[in-house]
């Protein structure tokens, strides 16, 4: 196993100081592919939002092994959350990923625009990037959002249920692509999903949230019928 990149130390997560999940202690290795599994309301999104710094921890802390610079996250939210009133093209949405490197009031340099095109090409979204984001299919939107996350030049790619509303074929292609960038670019992947079968072939580590508890293990350890039944029945880690 690679060196740990993100270490959660006795972390409690939740909203307005009310813990949804407590006592989370685990480490996520550099360049690993970790799936966060669980039913709706189990705390998956709360966990990644806490890791991303969007929510403060209720207790405990998150340490990252990047002494020189803060860890860069590329976040892929759920595509349906965006308001269709915005007349943004796929390219304009993807371009937002580079805004972190462009000072306020400055025009986006041509090099960054070219890099955005490159990221869109890498995810196979260049063909429809000029179309309005709101009019793209679920799978197309997800590709644009993955491209946007890649334009951030991330150390960690965090994806919140990217396969929701996507057909089987597109889902397989997307997971294949995420797996490839994990291996080729050595980007750590944190994938939130409730689709057990989808991650079986791709994730190395699984964090399973169930009944206010957390189970952690490798895909082969955790995603066996016996172990799954045990977790669902007892909620014990």
């Amino acid at each position: 196993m690679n060196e740990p990149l993100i270490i959660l130390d006795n972390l409690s997560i939740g909203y307005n100081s009310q813990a949804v999940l407590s006592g989370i202690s685990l480490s996520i290795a550099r360049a690993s592919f970790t799936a966060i599994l669980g039913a709706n309301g189990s705390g998956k999104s709360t966990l990644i939002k806490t890791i991303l710094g969007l929510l403060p921890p209720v207790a405990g802390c998150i340490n990252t092994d990047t002494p020189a610079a803060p860890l860069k996250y590329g976040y892929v939210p759920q595509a349906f959350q965006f308001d269709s009133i915005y007349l943004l093209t796929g390219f304009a949405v993807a371009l937002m990923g580079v805004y972190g490197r462009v000072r306020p009031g400055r025009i986006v340099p041509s090099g960054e625009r070219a890099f955005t095109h490159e990221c869109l090409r890498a995810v196979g979204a260049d063909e429809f990037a000029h179309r309005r984001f709101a009019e793209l299919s679920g799978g197309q939107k997800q590709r644009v959002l993955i491209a946007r996350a890649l334009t951030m030049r991330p150390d960690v790619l965090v994806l919140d249920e990217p396969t929701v509303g996507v057909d089987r074929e597109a889902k397989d292609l997307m997971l294949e692509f995420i797996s490839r960038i994990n291996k080729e670019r050595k980007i750590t992947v944190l994938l939130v999903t409730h689709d057990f079968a989808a991650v079986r072939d791709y994730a190395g580590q699984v964090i399973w949230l169930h009944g206010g508890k957390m189970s952690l293990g490798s895909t082969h350890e955790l995603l066996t019928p016996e172990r799954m039944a045990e977790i669902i029945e007892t909620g014990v880690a």
Partner: protein
Amino acid sequence: MDIIYQIFSPDFLLRNSIYTSVLVGLACPLVGVFLVMRRLVFMGVALPQISSTGVAVALSLPLWFGFHPSEHGSHSVHMLAFAGSITFSLIAILTLAFLERRGRGQPEGRLGTAYVVAAALSILLLSKNPYGEIGWLDMLKGEVITISNFDLGLTAAALTLIVAALGVFHKELFLVSFDREMAMILRKNVVFWDVLLYLLIGLTVSISVLSVGPLIAFGFLLIPALTAHKIARNMRQFAILAPLIGGVTAFFGFCIAYKLDLPVGPTDVVLLGALYAGIWMIAGIIPRIGLRRTT
């Protein structure tokens, strides 16, 4: 054509009025783009009314203390009105935005209540003001006829500042509006950008209310943006079309009003409404060739 020649003549008496109308027509819709995008249309209705209440309060205050502000010149009256307008606008927009961010209660209910209470308060203040029905009521109604060089200069400077700020920081303002979480991950100060946007909206509303009145300010804030949204294919077109529609309508509205001896502001708003209805019907009748093809 004769009217247009007259209007462009250097001796035209209402020169400042048409310049002010066109300036408001160009600047308000650009701010309206953000109101429409952030689904703050009701705020666009309530804010001009609250702003005009600020004018009424500011102009009534000196009378309550026993002196008449117009004795110190029309500029001081205008600055006092502006101070009242901007104070009320900013307090209202920041409070309403804060309450909306907390997500409690009904935003429509709050805005509706703010609108009606502000309108009633304006009427009460003016009814107890001996000067209200003469000059100040005209100001609140938006009398676009008597605009001094000072007023025109103030309006032009403020609206230029607003348009420049929106242009320079459009990238950050759109990011924070479209995807707040992404902006936070990119370490943008989302509160700062929200406050800047609200300040620009508040300033635009204040200047417009003083120049053309609450009704017309509301019309120019929202109708051009809603019309442009029907036909624009992307944000760039949206941001160009909305001020263009506002500016052109302000100009032709003034020409029509001048020719037919009608009040300018209401003529502009009716013209904007007719244009919006026309575009809406055309887009509805021919949805297949739709004005919004992006491919």
